[in-house]
C-alpha cells in the first residue's frame, strides 16, 4: 500500500502508514501473495512478548489477524528501529571513512565498524523492470563503509526474521544483498552499455557452503535414497566433486563452469558487471571478499574489494572521489531473486581522503 501523505509504500500491517500514520492512498493489492503474519495465532489477539513472524499464505496483506496483526506490524516496525534509530534517508549518501589499518572484512561485528558513520536508507520493492517484487520486504537497511587506501568494505544490515540459506528445493530462495557503484553518471537501472556498473553480491547460500561445506542434496532432503548415480556404482552419497571428469556432464551447469553451480567457493561475494537490466555477468577475476552473519532476526554482511580494478570495465575507486551508489536486499522467504528485490534509490558514495 502507498501512503496518501508521505508516499511511502508498505506491505504488512494495517490501513494506516507505519511511517507517519496517515491513511493509505490505495486499497490493498487484490493479488494473493506470499506474506507474513506478524503476531500470535491466526485471528488471535494482541501478541505477548516480542513479535514473531510466521510464513503463511494470505490474501492482500490484510486478510488474517485483522487489526491485531496491523497493530503488531506497526509496533514491530517501530521496535525494529524505524523510529528509534537514525532517521531513514530516502537516498543513500554514504561516506567511506578512512582508517589506517586492516579492514574487518571477515568480521561483521568488529568494533572497528563503529568508526564508520551509519546511514539508514529506505528500501522499496523493485517495480521498474519486469518482473516486479510484489511480496513483503524490509523497509530499510543500514549502510556503513570503510577504506584504508587499498581496500574498501561495506557493511549492510537489515531485518529478516526468516533465515534462508539454502537454494536446493525448487521453492527455496536465498537471502542476499548487493552494493553497486559506478561513475557519477551511471544510471539506476543497473548501468548501461556506455556506463557499466560494478556489483558486489553476497549470497547466504554461498556463505553457508563456505562455513559448513557444500550444501548438497541431503541438506534439504535428509532422507534421500538412491541406487547409484551412473557411473558412480557403489559410491554412498557421492558429492559433486566425486564425479570423474568424464562423467561431469551429468552435472551440466557445473561442467560448463557456471559460477552459480560451483561447489568450491573462494568467497561468499560475487563480483559482477552490469550494463542494464538482465545483463549482470560474473567478472573474470573473483577477488571480492566478505562475510555475512545472521543474529536475532538481522543479517549483518560485509562486502569488500580492492580500490583498484582488476578487470576491464570494472569501476576503480579513489579517495576524494564520488560515485553512483545503490544497495539491494533479497528476502529469500518472500521468493526474492533477480529483479524481485528491495532496492534503495540511486545515491552517492564518497571516499574520505586519508589523513
Amino acid at each position: 500500500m502507498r501512503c496518501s501523505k508521505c508516499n511511502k509504500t508498505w506491505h504488512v500491517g494495517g490501513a494506516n502508514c507505519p511511517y507517519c500514520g496517515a491513511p493509505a492512498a490505495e486499497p490493498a493489492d487484490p493479488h494473493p501473495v506470499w506474506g507474513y503474519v506478524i503476531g500470535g495465532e491466526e485471528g488471535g489477539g494482541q501478541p505477548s512478548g516480542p513479535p514473531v513472524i510466521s510464513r503463511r499464505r494470505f490474501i492482500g496483506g490484510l486478510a488474517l489477524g485483522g487489526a491485531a496483526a496491523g497493530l503488531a506490524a506497526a509496533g514491530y516496525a517501530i521496535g525494529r528501529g524505524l523510529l528509534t534509530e537514525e532517521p531513514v534517508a530516502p537516498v543513500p549518501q554514504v561516506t567511506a571513512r578512512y582508517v589506517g589499518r586492516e579492514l574487518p572484512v571477515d568480521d561483521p561485528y568488529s568494533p572497528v565498524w563503529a568508526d564508520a558513520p551509519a546511514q539508514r536508507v529506505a528500501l522499496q520493492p523493485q517495480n521498474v523492470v519486469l518482473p516486479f517484487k510484489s511480496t513483503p520486504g524490509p523497509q530499510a537497511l543500514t549502510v556503513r563503509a570503510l577504506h584504508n587506501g587499498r581496500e574498501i568494505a561495506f557493511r549492510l544490515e537489515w531485518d529478516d526474521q526468516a533465515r534462508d540459506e539454502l537454494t536446493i528445493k525448487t521453492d527455496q530462495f536465498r537471502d542476499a544483498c548487493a552494493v553497486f557503484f559506478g561513475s557519477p553518471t551511471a544510471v539506476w537501472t543497473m548501468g548501461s552499455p556506455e556506463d557499466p556498473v560494478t556489483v558486489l553480491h553476497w549470497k547466504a547460500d554461498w556463505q553457508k557452503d563456505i562455513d559448513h561445506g557444500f550444501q548438497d542434496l541431503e541438506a534439504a532432503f535428509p532422507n534421500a535414497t538412491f541406487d547409484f548415480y551412473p557411473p558412480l556404482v557403489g559410491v554412498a552419497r557421492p558429492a559433486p566433486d566425486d564425479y570423474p571428469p568424464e562423467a561431469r556432464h551429468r552435472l551440466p551447469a557445473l561442467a560448463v563452469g557456471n559460477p552459480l553451480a560451483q561447489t568450491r567457493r573462494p568467497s561468499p561475494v560475487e563480483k559482477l558487471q552490469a550494463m542494464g537490466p538482465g545483463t549482470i555477468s560474473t567478472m573474470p577475476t573473483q577477488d571480492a571478499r566478505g562475510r555475512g552473519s545472521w543474529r536475532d532476526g538481522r543479517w549483518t554482511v560485509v562486502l569488500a574489494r580492492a580500490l583498484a580494478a582488476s578487470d576491464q570495465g570494472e569501476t576503480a575507486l579513489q579517495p576524494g572521489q564520488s560515485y553512483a551508489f545503490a544497495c539491494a536486499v533479497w528476502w529469500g522467504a518472500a521468493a526474492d531473486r533477480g529483479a524481485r528485490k528491495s532496492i534503495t534509490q540511486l545515491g552517492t558514495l564518497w571516499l574520505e581522503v586519508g589523513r
Partner: protein
Amino acid sequence: MPRVYNWQIGREMEYPFEAARPLRQAAAVFDINKCIACQTCTMACKTTWTSGRGQEYMFWNNVETKPWGSYPLAWDVRILQMLGPQTWQGDRYTGKTIFEAAPLGEKAIGYLPEDLDYAYPNRGEDEISDASIGQRFYLRLPHDAWFFYLPRICNHCTYPACLGSCPRTAIYKRPEDGIVLVDQERCRGYRECVKNCPYKKVFYNHVTRVAEKCVLCYPAVERGIQPRCMRNCIGKIRTFGFVNTPDKADPENPVDFLVHVRKVALPLLPQLGLEPNVYYIPPVHVGNLDFLRMLFGPGVDNAIAAYRRAMAGEDPELVGVLMLAVSTDRIVHRFRVRDGYAYGYGEDGSELVRVPLKEPVTVRQFYDSLVGAYRYNVT
C-alpha cells in the same frame, strides 16, 4: 508487449518478444489411442539425460493418467484455475492467454511448484473418471467411465513462456529447428521459467542450482535421428518431424498431414497461448467430450471423426502415416501411401522405411510333420 500471430488460437496475441519463427520447427504427434503407459519413453529419457545428482525428481518425459493424474501435482488444474473460465468462438479463442492475463509486474501468470508437488509422478495411475457408476453398467463406446494416458514432454513452443519470462535471456529457441534450450552457463537459477511454463517442463537442479529442461535430443536431431523417447516408444504412438504453419502446410509431410490436412492431431491446452509443438490425437473412447475440448481445444470433434473414419478403413492415407510411427530411428520428412504400403522418406528423398498397412498373417499348422511334433502356444 509486442503482438504475435498464434494460428492455434486463430488470432494475434501479446508476447514478451517479437515473433521470430525458426527456419523449421521440430514437432511431434502422439496418438493417445495407442499409448499403454509402459513408461519406456520416460526411462529412455531418464537414463539418457537425468540420472545425475540433483535430477532425481526430474522427468523431462512423463506419462500421466487423465483425468486424475498429473506431474507435477495438479499442474493443469492449477493453471486453468488461475486463468479462470475462458471462451472460444469457433476456432478463434476469445479468452485470455497466460501472457494476456498477467497481473501488473509479471510477464505471465504461473506458479512455482513445491518439492512435494513432484513427489508423486504417477499419482492417479489407471484411475477411472467416475468410480460412482451405478449397478446397471454396460460397456459401450464412448465409455461412461474412462481414463487415458497422456505422455508429456516439453512442447518446444513457438511462443515459450519459459523463454519469455527469463529476465536474463538465458533461454533461447534455436533458429535451425525451434528447439528451446536453457543455456547452462548463463542461467542464474531465478526459476522464472519454472514458474511460468504452464506445462511445468522446466526443472530446477537441486545440486547445480540452475534450471534444466528437455533438449529434444538435439544431438540426435542434428544427425537426422529421432529423439530417444520417440524412437523407443513401445506403443508406436509417436510421429516425429517438422511442422509448418497452416498456410505452408505440406500434405506429404507426416506431421503437417496429421495436424493441418486431416486435423486429427491437436495442441495441448492451446488456450494458454504458447503454440505448443507436440500434438495429440485425442482418445476416441472418452465419454466426456468437454474434458477433451478443455485439453485440446475446439478441434476435438473433427479429430475424433477423422480418426474413426481411418479405423473403419475409409482413410488408408491416415492409417499409413500412423503405421510409419516409430518404424525407423531416422526422421521421416515425407511419406506416401501406395499399393497397401506406407513409404517414409528422408530429407534427401531416399526411402527410409516401408511398412504394410496390414501386417501379413501366417497361420502355422498345429502339427509340424518335418520334425514330427505338435506346436504348442506356451505364452
